[in-house]
């Protein structure tokens, strides 16, 4: 179990480009596949990781590790997610400083970048389908969660208005707090 946590997060740390959000589609796959968390629990974990200080990826790894195997689980998962970064960066800083200047590397990254954006968008889309419409495959009949759809619509409207008025998107933590209040009121 501890080895599995370590290896899973090692794999995630080694191939996730694009920072914390780039990692979410990978983590979601692994977590659902291993039956570690349900989709709803996973979303709650992201919210907690986003509202506490520190890198999203480290927070997620610690949280998932702790939920599966206490402090040792948290340690194994965090170590796993950090180690690939650590060694890759050491390698670059110490030996191959010009790695990024090789045209081949740049070409590889030019393919990876749009892929990561596509992964994030499709993860949000499939999460939305399963949480708000109750469908995870096309064969299922939709059972819309109207309150959830209402909250999403409201958040989108607030974002648009805020962006117009202040010229920037509202802070993630503010939106999380707002949706917590909405959830507590609507789901009574």
């Amino acid at each position, binding site marked *: 179990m501890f080895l599995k946590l370590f290896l899973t997060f090692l794999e995630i*740390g*080694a*191939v*996730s480009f694009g*920072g914390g959000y780039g*990692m*979410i589609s*990978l983590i979601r*796959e692994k977590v659902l*596949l291993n039956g570690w968390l349900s989709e709803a629990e996973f979303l*709650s974990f992201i*919210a*907690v*990781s986003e509202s506490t200080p*520190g*890198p999203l*990826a480290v927070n997620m790894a*610690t949280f998932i590790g702790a939920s599966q195997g206490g402090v040792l689980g*948290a340690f194994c998962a*965090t170590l796993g*997610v950090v180690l690939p*970064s*650590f060694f*890759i*960066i*050491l390698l670059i*800083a*110490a030996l191959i400083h010009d790695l*990024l200047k090789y*045209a081949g590397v740049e*070409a*590889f*990254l030019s*393919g990876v*970048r749009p*892929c*990561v*954006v*596509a*992964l*994030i*968008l*499709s*993860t*949000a889309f499939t*999460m939305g389908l399963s949480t708000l419409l109750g469908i*995870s*495959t096309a*064969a299922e009949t939709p059972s819309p969660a109207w309150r*959830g759809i209402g*909250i*999403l619509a409201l958040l989108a409207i607030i*974002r648009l208005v805020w962006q117009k008025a202040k010229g920037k998107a509202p802070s993630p*933590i503010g939106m*999380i707090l*707002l*949706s*917590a209040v909405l*959830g*507590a009121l609507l789901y009574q």
Partner: protein
Amino acid sequence: MKHNTPAQEAKSLETLFFTFFKIGLFTFGGGYAMIALLEEEFIQRRKWLDKDEFLDMTAIAESTPGPVAINSATYLGYKLAKVPGAATATVAVCLPSFLIIYAISLFFEQFTQLTVIANAFKGIQVCVIYLIFSAGVRMLKALDKSPFATGVLAAVMLVMVGLSLAGVSISSILLILLSGAAGVAAWLIGRRKEGK
């Protein structure tokens, strides 16, 4: 970089540790927020690095796998005090997260068993979908709009959403590696054409 006596080195490791601990403790919103803080701390306040080195660091941290915050900590730690520095900075930047999240995880299950909290989290879950989607849109806007990038984007989205609706699971890792390979292939073909 400058050469230090052992005493100065121990001192600089200590400073590295506390600086990165502080950065891990006070940055919300992940890697990109952290980069702004690092710049303030290392370039403006301590003058440990110059602007060019810092820009190099940012480019490397963003284009290598793994969390941007960890990548920057390892890189800056190494630049300032070699391998011990890299290890110190990396541990220090993770430690606050680890302690805080572990403490939360101890109470989280009981906490979410309260009805009102469970309901609040139903609202929060919707918000997280919104947050992931807007992070995706933000990155989409920053992406270059070459036909190749647009093609990869469309293909990966189609495959991901299509297969997941069909109930088939596909590994994102495979898609990342394939897209990278497509990037290399497009580059090689482009170079071939130029060569002729």
